[in-house]
Protein backbone atom coordinates (compact mmCIF):
# COMPACT_ATOMS: atom_id res chain seq x y z
CA UNK A 1 0.00 0.00 0.00
CA UNK A 2 2.83 2.36 0.84
CA UNK A 3 4.84 1.07 -2.10
CA UNK A 4 2.88 3.38 -4.38
CA UNK A 5 3.80 6.34 -2.21
CA UNK A 6 7.45 5.31 -2.23
CA UNK A 7 7.48 5.05 -6.01
CA UNK A 8 5.75 8.40 -6.22
CA UNK A 9 8.31 9.94 -3.90
CA UNK A 10 11.12 8.47 -5.97
CA UNK A 11 9.54 9.71 -9.18
CA UNK A 12 9.13 13.26 -7.98
CA UNK A 13 12.59 13.38 -6.40
CA UNK A 14 14.11 12.15 -9.66
CA UNK A 15 12.14 14.77 -11.58
CA UNK A 16 13.29 17.55 -9.29
CA UNK A 17 16.86 16.33 -9.57
CA UNK A 18 16.55 16.11 -13.33
CA UNK A 19 15.28 19.66 -13.43
CA UNK A 20 18.34 20.81 -11.51
CA UNK A 21 20.61 18.93 -13.92
CA UNK A 22 18.75 20.37 -16.90
CA UNK A 23 19.08 23.86 -15.51
CA UNK A 24 22.83 23.38 -15.16
CA UNK A 25 22.93 22.71 -18.86
CA UNK A 26 20.62 25.51 -19.91
CA UNK A 27 21.45 28.32 -17.50
CA UNK A 28 23.92 30.98 -18.50
CA UNK A 29 26.22 29.93 -15.68
CA UNK A 30 26.42 26.71 -13.72
CA UNK A 31 27.46 28.10 -10.41
CA UNK A 32 24.98 30.21 -8.51
CA UNK A 33 25.59 33.91 -8.24
CA UNK A 34 26.55 34.90 -4.72
CA UNK A 35 24.61 38.03 -4.00
CA UNK A 36 23.73 40.33 -1.17
CA UNK A 37 20.09 40.42 -0.08
CA UNK A 38 17.81 42.81 -1.91
CA UNK A 39 17.39 45.89 0.27
CA UNK A 40 16.15 48.47 -2.20
CA UNK A 41 19.71 49.06 -3.36
CA UNK A 42 21.44 49.37 0.01
CA UNK A 43 23.98 47.19 1.70
CA UNK A 44 22.70 45.20 4.68
CA UNK A 45 23.95 46.36 8.04
CA UNK A 46 23.34 43.02 9.65
CA UNK A 47 22.36 39.48 8.78
CA UNK A 48 18.63 38.97 8.54
CA UNK A 49 18.71 35.69 10.41
CA UNK A 50 18.03 36.90 13.89
CA UNK A 51 15.73 36.52 16.83
CA UNK A 52 12.60 37.29 14.89
CA UNK A 53 9.75 38.67 16.91
CA UNK A 54 6.65 36.83 15.76
CA UNK A 55 4.14 38.97 17.58
CA UNK A 56 1.39 36.47 17.03
CA UNK A 57 2.91 33.96 19.42
CA UNK A 58 -0.08 33.95 21.81
CA UNK A 59 -2.15 32.50 18.96
CA UNK A 60 0.30 29.62 18.57
CA UNK A 61 -0.44 28.60 22.15
CA UNK A 62 -4.17 28.62 21.49
CA UNK A 63 -3.58 26.65 18.36
CA UNK A 64 -1.53 24.01 20.13
CA UNK A 65 -4.19 23.56 22.79
CA UNK A 66 -7.00 23.26 20.28
CA UNK A 67 -5.08 21.16 17.87
CA UNK A 68 -4.56 18.24 20.28
CA UNK A 69 -8.27 17.76 19.95
CA UNK A 70 -7.83 16.73 16.32
CA UNK A 71 -6.15 13.54 17.57
CA UNK A 72 -9.57 12.44 18.79
CA UNK A 73 -11.59 14.00 16.04
CA UNK A 74 -10.38 11.79 13.20
CA UNK A 75 -11.08 8.42 14.87
CA UNK A 76 -14.36 9.84 16.13
CA UNK A 77 -15.36 10.76 12.58
CA UNK A 78 -14.82 7.17 11.49
CA UNK A 79 -17.05 5.66 14.16
CA UNK A 80 -19.69 8.24 14.98
CA UNK A 81 -22.29 6.75 12.65
CA UNK A 82 -22.03 3.44 14.46
CA UNK A 83 -21.97 4.76 18.01
CA UNK A 84 -25.01 6.98 17.80
CA UNK A 85 -26.08 10.16 19.59
CA UNK A 86 -23.92 9.65 22.66
CA UNK A 87 -20.74 10.09 20.71
CA UNK A 88 -22.03 13.20 19.00
CA UNK A 89 -23.04 14.84 22.25
CA UNK A 90 -19.85 13.94 23.96
CA UNK A 91 -17.64 15.30 21.18
CA UNK A 92 -19.53 18.53 20.84
CA UNK A 93 -19.56 19.18 24.55
CA UNK A 94 -15.81 18.73 24.35
CA UNK A 95 -15.59 21.10 21.37
CA UNK A 96 -17.99 23.52 22.99
CA UNK A 97 -15.74 23.83 26.02
CA UNK A 98 -12.79 24.57 23.76
CA UNK A 99 -14.78 27.04 21.69
CA UNK A 100 -15.74 28.85 24.87
CA UNK A 101 -12.04 29.22 25.50
CA UNK A 102 -11.52 30.53 21.98
CA UNK A 103 -14.27 33.11 22.33
CA UNK A 104 -12.82 34.21 25.62
CA UNK A 105 -9.43 34.57 23.95
CA UNK A 106 -11.02 36.59 21.19
CA UNK A 107 -12.51 38.98 23.71
CA UNK A 108 -9.13 39.21 25.36
CA UNK A 109 -7.76 40.47 22.08
CA UNK A 110 -5.50 37.48 21.46
CA UNK A 111 -6.09 37.60 17.71
CA UNK A 112 -4.71 41.10 17.32
CA UNK A 113 -1.06 41.75 17.72
CA UNK A 114 0.18 44.73 15.81
Amino acid at each position, binding site marked *: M*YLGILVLLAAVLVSVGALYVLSRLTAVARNPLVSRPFLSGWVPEE*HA*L*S*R*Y*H*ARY*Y*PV*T*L*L*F*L*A*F*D*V*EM*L*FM*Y*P*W*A*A*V*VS*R*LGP*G*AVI*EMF*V*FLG*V*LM*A*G*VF*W*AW*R*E*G*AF*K*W*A
Partner: protein
Amino acid sequence: MLTTVLFIVLALVAVAAGIAVFRTDSMARATYALAASFVAVGAMLLQFNLDYIGVVTILMMVMEMAIMAIFMIMFMGMNPALMPMSMVHNKRGSLLIAGGVFLVLAAGALLVPWPARRGAPAPDLTVSLGEAIMGNKMLVMLTVSPLLFATLVSALVLANPRGRYRPYPKLPAPKQSESGPEHHGHTGGGH
Protein backbone atom coordinates in the same frame (compact mmCIF):
# COMPACT_ATOMS: atom_id res chain seq x y z
CA MET B 1 13.34 -8.12 3.05
CA LEU B 2 12.49 -4.72 1.66
CA THR B 3 10.60 -3.88 4.82
CA THR B 4 13.57 -4.81 6.98
CA VAL B 5 15.91 -2.67 4.92
CA LEU B 6 13.45 0.18 5.05
CA PHE B 7 13.06 -0.20 8.78
CA ILE B 8 16.80 -0.08 9.32
CA VAL B 9 17.15 2.94 7.07
CA LEU B 10 14.37 4.77 8.89
CA ALA B 11 15.84 3.89 12.26
CA LEU B 12 19.22 5.21 11.19
CA VAL B 13 17.64 8.38 9.84
CA ALA B 14 15.77 8.89 13.10
CA VAL B 15 18.92 8.47 15.19
CA ALA B 16 21.11 10.51 12.85
CA ALA B 17 18.61 13.37 12.75
CA GLY B 18 18.41 13.18 16.52
CA ILE B 19 22.18 13.52 16.76
CA ALA B 20 22.12 16.38 14.27
CA VAL B 21 19.89 18.31 16.65
CA PHE B 22 22.84 18.64 19.00
CA ARG B 23 25.53 19.04 16.41
CA THR B 24 24.20 21.95 14.43
CA ASP B 25 24.79 25.62 15.13
CA SER B 26 21.45 26.81 13.89
CA MET B 27 18.25 26.80 15.87
CA ALA B 28 16.28 26.39 12.67
CA ARG B 29 18.27 23.36 11.64
CA ALA B 30 18.10 21.87 15.11
CA THR B 31 14.33 22.19 15.17
CA TYR B 32 13.80 20.67 11.79
CA ALA B 33 16.34 17.94 12.40
CA LEU B 34 14.11 16.97 15.31
CA ALA B 35 11.11 17.12 13.01
CA ALA B 36 12.89 14.87 10.51
CA SER B 37 13.62 12.43 13.30
CA PHE B 38 9.96 12.33 14.25
CA VAL B 39 8.92 11.86 10.64
CA ALA B 40 11.20 8.84 10.42
CA VAL B 41 9.62 7.45 13.60
CA GLY B 42 6.17 8.09 12.15
CA ALA B 43 7.13 6.21 9.01
CA MET B 44 8.29 3.32 11.17
CA LEU B 45 4.91 3.27 12.88
CA LEU B 46 3.35 3.01 9.44
CA GLN B 47 5.42 -0.13 8.94
CA PHE B 48 3.65 -1.67 11.92
CA ASN B 49 0.35 -1.05 10.11
CA LEU B 50 -0.52 1.63 12.64
CA ASP B 51 -1.76 3.84 9.84
CA TYR B 52 -3.52 6.45 11.87
CA ILE B 53 -0.96 6.76 14.63
CA GLY B 54 1.87 6.92 12.11
CA VAL B 55 0.37 9.57 9.87
CA VAL B 56 -0.88 11.61 12.79
CA THR B 57 2.57 11.50 14.38
CA ILE B 58 4.03 13.01 11.24
CA LEU B 59 1.25 15.57 11.06
CA MET B 60 1.44 16.69 14.65
CA MET B 61 5.19 16.67 14.97
CA VAL B 62 5.86 18.72 11.86
CA MET B 63 3.25 21.20 12.99
CA GLU B 64 4.58 21.42 16.55
CA MET B 65 8.13 21.78 15.31
CA ALA B 66 7.14 24.59 12.97
CA ILE B 67 5.66 26.38 15.97
CA MET B 68 8.54 25.44 18.22
CA ALA B 69 10.92 27.02 15.71
CA ILE B 70 9.21 30.35 16.32
CA PHE B 71 9.87 30.12 20.03
CA MET B 72 13.32 28.62 19.77
CA ILE B 73 14.44 31.45 17.53
CA MET B 74 12.72 34.13 19.53
CA PHE B 75 13.76 33.19 23.01
CA MET B 76 17.31 32.08 22.63
CA GLY B 77 19.63 34.65 24.07
CA MET B 78 21.75 34.92 20.96
CA ASN B 79 21.71 34.85 17.22
CA PRO B 80 19.85 31.69 16.21
CA ALA B 81 21.78 30.87 13.08
CA LEU B 82 25.17 32.42 12.76
CA MET B 83 26.86 31.85 16.09
CA PRO B 84 28.35 28.62 17.32
CA MET B 85 26.15 27.23 20.01
CA SER B 86 25.62 24.21 22.11
CA MET B 87 22.28 22.59 22.64
CA VAL B 88 23.57 20.72 25.68
CA HIS B 89 23.03 21.79 29.25
CA ASN B 90 24.39 19.91 32.20
CA LYS B 91 26.28 17.56 29.98
CA ARG B 92 27.25 14.95 32.52
CA GLY B 93 23.85 14.69 34.15
CA SER B 94 21.98 14.44 30.89
CA LEU B 95 24.41 11.86 29.55
CA LEU B 96 23.91 9.80 32.67
CA ILE B 97 20.14 10.00 32.50
CA ALA B 98 20.02 9.32 28.78
CA GLY B 99 22.36 6.36 29.07
CA GLY B 100 20.42 4.97 31.99
CA VAL B 101 17.08 5.24 30.29
CA PHE B 102 18.47 3.68 27.14
CA LEU B 103 19.86 0.73 29.09
CA VAL B 104 16.60 0.16 30.94
CA LEU B 105 14.54 0.27 27.77
CA ALA B 106 16.96 -1.88 25.82
CA ALA B 107 17.09 -4.41 28.64
CA GLY B 108 13.32 -4.40 28.75
CA ALA B 109 13.07 -4.96 25.03
CA LEU B 110 15.53 -7.81 25.08
CA LEU B 111 14.83 -9.49 28.40
CA VAL B 112 11.08 -9.40 28.80
CA PRO B 113 9.52 -12.61 27.51
CA TRP B 114 7.11 -11.08 25.02
CA PRO B 115 3.84 -13.01 24.79
CA ALA B 116 2.80 -14.54 21.49
CA ARG B 117 0.06 -12.72 19.64
CA ARG B 118 -3.42 -13.79 20.60
CA GLY B 119 -6.16 -13.17 18.08
CA ALA B 120 -5.74 -10.86 15.11
CA PRO B 121 -5.76 -7.09 14.92
CA ALA B 122 -9.02 -5.47 13.95
CA PRO B 123 -9.48 -4.89 10.24
CA ASP B 124 -9.50 -1.15 10.71
CA LEU B 125 -7.37 0.02 13.58
CA THR B 126 -8.58 3.60 13.32
CA VAL B 127 -12.13 2.45 13.89
CA SER B 128 -11.15 0.46 16.93
CA LEU B 129 -9.23 3.46 18.20
CA GLY B 130 -12.33 5.60 17.79
CA GLU B 131 -14.46 3.01 19.52
CA ALA B 132 -12.01 2.83 22.37
CA ILE B 133 -11.96 6.60 22.81
CA MET B 134 -15.71 6.85 22.72
CA GLY B 135 -16.29 3.64 24.63
CA ASN B 136 -14.25 2.17 27.43
CA LYS B 137 -11.50 4.81 27.34
CA MET B 138 -13.97 7.66 27.59
CA LEU B 139 -12.36 8.85 30.80
CA VAL B 140 -9.39 10.00 28.74
CA MET B 141 -11.59 12.26 26.65
CA LEU B 142 -13.36 13.58 29.71
CA THR B 143 -10.13 14.53 31.43
CA VAL B 144 -8.49 15.90 28.33
CA SER B 145 -11.30 18.36 27.71
CA PRO B 146 -10.98 20.51 30.85
CA LEU B 147 -7.23 20.02 30.71
CA LEU B 148 -7.06 21.57 27.25
CA PHE B 149 -9.36 24.34 28.30
CA ALA B 150 -7.15 25.10 31.27
CA THR B 151 -4.09 25.01 29.04
CA LEU B 152 -5.69 27.38 26.62
CA VAL B 153 -6.69 29.87 29.26
CA SER B 154 -3.52 29.72 31.32
CA ALA B 155 -1.28 29.91 28.26
CA LEU B 156 -3.06 33.00 27.12
CA VAL B 157 -3.05 34.61 30.54
CA LEU B 158 0.69 34.10 30.69
CA ALA B 159 1.40 35.17 27.13
CA ASN B 160 -1.00 38.08 26.96
CA PRO B 161 -1.12 39.41 30.52
CA ARG B 162 -2.64 42.77 29.70
CA GLY B 163 -5.99 41.36 28.81
CA ARG B 164 -8.77 43.13 27.01
CA TYR B 165 -8.85 46.36 28.93
CA ARG B 166 -5.33 47.42 28.28
CA PRO B 167 -4.43 46.82 24.66
CA TYR B 168 -0.81 46.56 23.82
CA PRO B 169 0.89 49.76 22.85
CA LYS B 170 2.16 49.66 19.34
CA LEU B 171 5.66 50.37 20.49
CA PRO B 172 7.54 50.03 23.75
CA ALA B 173 7.57 53.11 25.90
CA PRO B 174 10.53 55.35 25.14
CA LYS B 175 13.54 54.17 27.06
CA GLN B 176 15.06 55.99 29.96
CA SER B 177 18.59 57.06 29.30
CA GLU B 178 19.98 55.02 32.19
CA SER B 179 20.34 51.87 30.15
CA GLY B 180 22.49 53.68 27.66
CA PRO B 181 22.89 52.70 24.06
CA GLU B 182 22.21 49.06 23.46
CA HIS B 183 25.42 47.24 22.95
CA HIS B 184 25.35 44.51 20.46
CA GLY B 185 25.26 41.52 22.57
CA HIS B 186 24.38 38.13 23.70
CA THR B 187 23.05 38.59 27.13
CA GLY B 188 22.94 34.93 27.80
CA GLY B 189 19.92 33.23 29.23
CA GLY B 190 18.67 29.79 28.44
CA HIS B 191 16.81 28.62 25.50
